[in-house]
């Protein structure tokens, strides 16, 4: 059985500092794959949808399959990176990031389908993907 010895003021401050340091380091050690993934996903899909919206023929095929390939590789990296880690996978915050990305991605795909060739709309839609991804990554990094 432990016999609690009350800490002095200096010891209490040391304990508080230690708690903060431990909490941050444990959190930082587990969230980097999430930040990397959401940022890379945003960059890849933003550039991919922009290219898809403005190209035709072989160039379109290349951008389409290139984007798919990069997203697939990112998902593999992510699944390998979070193997055994479950810090954020089911968190409300993480669901929010992915849902936000998906909404902007769906909008960009809609531009590819229904407004093909429009530089303005493609720029806005793809830019939104990038903005949402960067905002999510920055928010996660600062949490």
């Amino acid at each position, binding site marked *: 059985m*432990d016999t609690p010895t009350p800490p002095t*003021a200096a010891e209490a401050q040391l304990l*508080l500092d230690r708690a903060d340091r431990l909490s941050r380091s*444990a959190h930082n050690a587990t969230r980097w794959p999430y930040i990397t993934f959401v940022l890379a996903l945003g960059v890849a899909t933003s550039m991919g949808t922009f290219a898809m919206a403005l190209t035709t023929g072989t160039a379109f095929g290349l951008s389409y399959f290139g984007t798919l390939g990069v997203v697939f590789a990112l998902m593999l990296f992510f699944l390998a990176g979070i193997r055994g880690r479950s810090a954020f996978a089911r968190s409300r915050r993480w669901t929010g990031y992915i849902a936000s990305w998906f909404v902007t991605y769906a909008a960009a795909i809609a531009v590819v389908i229904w407004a093909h060739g429009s530089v303005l709309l493609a720029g806005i839609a793809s830019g939104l993907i990038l903005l949402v991804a960067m905002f999510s990554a920055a928010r996660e990094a600062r*949490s």
Partner: protein
Amino acid sequence: MTATDHHPRHRLDDLLHNPVRFSIIAALDRAGTLGFKEVRDAVEITDSALSKQVATLESAGYISVGKAFAGKLPRTSLTLTRQGRAAWKAHLATLREIAGESS
């Protein structure tokens, strides 16, 4: 009741006063849920020492232990419960109160 009964040290959580248990809960504070190995690495203790303290914290309702499989490998996750978070916040508040006494 004497004046000494009002000292904040009386409000310290005995369970969290243990350095290892203190560190385990501190590691879980921001992340919420971590793998057994992640907590072990953060706290820098052996598997058996961690298991022992995890059992104590689990029986107190401060953390919940999840078991899952990643392929064929078993994965144990530790999650800070609502009760554990409340106890942790109260413990930290008391420590802050004690730390503030010097000023």
